[in-house]
């Protein structure tokens, strides 16, 4: 019996020593903010006002950190005045433009995820600097309304 108790004591001591000697914080005790890839980020934009397009609140969110030259995507949410997901009256189009250099980028692909939620794909930044993301509502080829979302890389 005393032998068993002795082994328990040794095992307990070894476990305490191992936990003290281990490096790094426990993932269960972390106070870190969730990563941007989980949370969604708009921190690369200087836009602080609410974006309104077609009478709806427009919320753009990157699903991952934006990278130069890579295929970036963005989720766009439209909310009505009572906070319900709502489609705009006209079709949504996005266009990247670099005003200082006077050129755009590759055509952005938009797919509807559900009512009021869209995914924009193939957003390519070809150089660091200031870009405007033009969020447009179009009736055919005519731009009915647009807002700009400034982005600096």
């Amino acid at each position, binding site marked *: 019996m005393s032998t068993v108790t002795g082994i328990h004591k040794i095992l307990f001591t070894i476990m305490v020593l191992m936990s003290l000697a281990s490096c790094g914080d426990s993932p269960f005790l972390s106070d870190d903010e969730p990563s941007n890839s989980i949370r969604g980020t708009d921190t690369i934009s200087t836009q602080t006002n609410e974006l309104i397009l077609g009478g709806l609140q427009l919320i753009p969110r990157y699903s991952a950190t934006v990278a*130069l*030259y*890579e*295929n970036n995507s963005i989720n766009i949410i439209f909310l009505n005045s009572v906070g319900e997901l709502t489609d705009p009256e006209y079709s949504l189009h996005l266009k990247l433009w670099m005003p200082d250099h006077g*050129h*755009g*980028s*590759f*055509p952005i692909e938009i797919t509807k995820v559900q009512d009021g939620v869209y995914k924009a794909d*193939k957003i*390519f930044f*070809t*150089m660091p600097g200031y870009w405007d993301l033009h969020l447009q509502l179009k009736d055919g080829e005519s731009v009915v309304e647009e807002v700009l979302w400034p982005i600096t890389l």
Partner: protein
Amino acid sequence: MKKLLVLLTTLVSVNILAHCPLYFSAEDLCADLEWTNGPAYNVESGFEVSFWRNGDHNHELVSPEAEVSFRPWMIMSNGHSHGGPAMTWQEVEAGLFEINDARFIGGMMGYWQVLIKVGDEELAVKVEIE
């Protein structure tokens, strides 16, 4: 005179047979780029790049030992240059690389190149878009 003519013809023939559009000296390899789709502005273009041993008239495919990569590059008329949308590639058979997502943005003041890198050597192919 006849001997000189034969010599010249031989030299020209050898030169033609030793076709080497892109020469990577570190591995003594030649390469060529062939468009399979496009090239065109603002849509996805495709191309293949093949490698063979320098001097091999049969152009038998050889896989480079060093890492191979591809990227677009814009040479601007103001003297500056910058990159473009990243492309992906697959070595579909030893020495033959396939790219199906080359994207060349239109409306820029300059011309695009495809940069082909083998190890530390990088060579450019000008993209001719009508």
